[in-house]
């Protein structure tokens, strides 16, 4: 903290001042220039994610603690060194194409619902999916001056997918982009995912994939923003999801579980 940041003469109740709109929801930001936030060394954002909306994978330079104000969802946190303990048997994914089965294996998923507090460590990539029937609303605190954050005193978000160049000005609110505080100036260009900074050839070599697939990682023509709509719903290996899928199979329908 710099000098005088906590010499507060008056405290006011605050409301979000900026918004980043996406295909399946939006994120509101509180003004990080407010003396109260500067004194506390924190930032607050509010995500509103529509049903079947997916907050794309990203990681931040600060730890995050969030409260689920409304709805329920599922979260994946990619912790380095942890095994992919959620794995499908060959029977679970019956879809076959060209003789190849679609088995999947990934790290543990965490289901959460209204009233839950959820913690995400600094630098841990994570994604959030709204698998409920109503909007998922999350209030997240980002602890900018936490000892784990060795960058500057604003949170920086690094996206692994998508890009957020299609922000719209809404309700007279100024345009805001991910990854920079307001100190950096307004009307900045939107942030891209980190793969856009790498050469396609380099990505293809590192992933051992062809260049066309490597190009897809950059999401250069993706205008959906940072929260995208998953049209047919997200299917993943999960104890709760498996129960729902079983219920659907028994009913022979596609609707949500009763």
């Amino acid at each position, binding site marked *: 903290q710099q000098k005088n940041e906590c010499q507060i003469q008056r405290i006011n109740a605050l409301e979000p001042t900026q918004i980043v709109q996406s295909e399946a929801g939006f994120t509101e930001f509180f003004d990080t220039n407010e003396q109260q936030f500067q004194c506390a060394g924190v930032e607050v954002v509010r995500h509103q994610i529509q049903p079947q909306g997916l907050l794309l*994978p990203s990681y931040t330079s600060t730890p995050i603690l969030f409260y689920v104000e409304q709805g329920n969802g599922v979260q994946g946190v990619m912790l380095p060194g942890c095994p992919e303990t959620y794995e499908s048997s060959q029977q679970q994914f019956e879809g076959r194409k060209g003789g*190849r089965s679609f088995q999947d294996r990934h790290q543990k998923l965490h289901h959460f619902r209204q009233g839950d507090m959820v913690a995400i460590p600094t630098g841990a990539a994570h994604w959030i999916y709204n698998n409920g029937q109503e909007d998922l609303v999350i209030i997240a605190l980002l602890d900018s001056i936490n000892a784990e954050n060795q960058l500057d005193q604003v949170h920086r978000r690094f996206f*692994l*997918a998508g890009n957020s160049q299609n922000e719209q000005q809404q309700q007279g609110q100024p345009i805001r982009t991910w990854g920079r505080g307001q100190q950096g100036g307004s009307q900045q260009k939107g942030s891209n995912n980190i793969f856009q900074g790498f050469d396609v050839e380099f990505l293809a070599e*590192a992933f051992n994939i062809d260049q066309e697939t490597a190009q897809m*990682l950059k999401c250069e023509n993706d205008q959906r923003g940072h929260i995208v709509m998953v049209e047919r719903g997200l299917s993943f290996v999960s104890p709760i999801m498996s129960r729902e899928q079983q219920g659907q199979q028994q009913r022979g329908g596609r609707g949500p579980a009763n």
Partner: protein
Amino acid sequence: GLEETICSMKLRENIDDISKADSYNPQAGHCTHLNSYKFPILQLLQLSAERGVLKSHGIVAPHWIMNAHNIIYVTNGNMRIQIVNDQGQSVFNDQVRERQLVVVPQNFAVVKQAGEQGCSWISFRTNDNAMINTLAGRTSAMRALPLAVLTNAYQMSREDAQQLKYSRDETVLLSPSTIPYAAGRV
């Protein structure tokens, strides 16, 4: 009890011995980490180090360090390094030669590939237990993602997503690509 702790503390640890390597890939190279688990005084310093050796065209998987800045000093050979910031902008994309140094800020994504002659480096990290998160390979963040997240995030087919997840079985040190048209040699 001071003399039983600090005074007798180990102050030296060799990091060049290949038999102590933490990661080893005959086709790509090896690297050794020195953190406070191995060398307890680093807990006081809040620093750690890595010694790395890459063979010709060997690759260090794209990664970010979750909790530390990384200062890389090339001791031998050369390598190409790309560094990307939170805006997805390439902030460094160049060859780094012997006796040159690069600072990689915390969380910035980085990928390295050795030149023809291979490369070795020493890197200093500003955390006594720096944690790396890779983007490609067996223990990477991409592997930890469900296929459905990959297909929707990157708007790709399940086949492409599977290829993306499983084409690399190595972890941190990657051998040069086996796909001829994927090669982008330095």
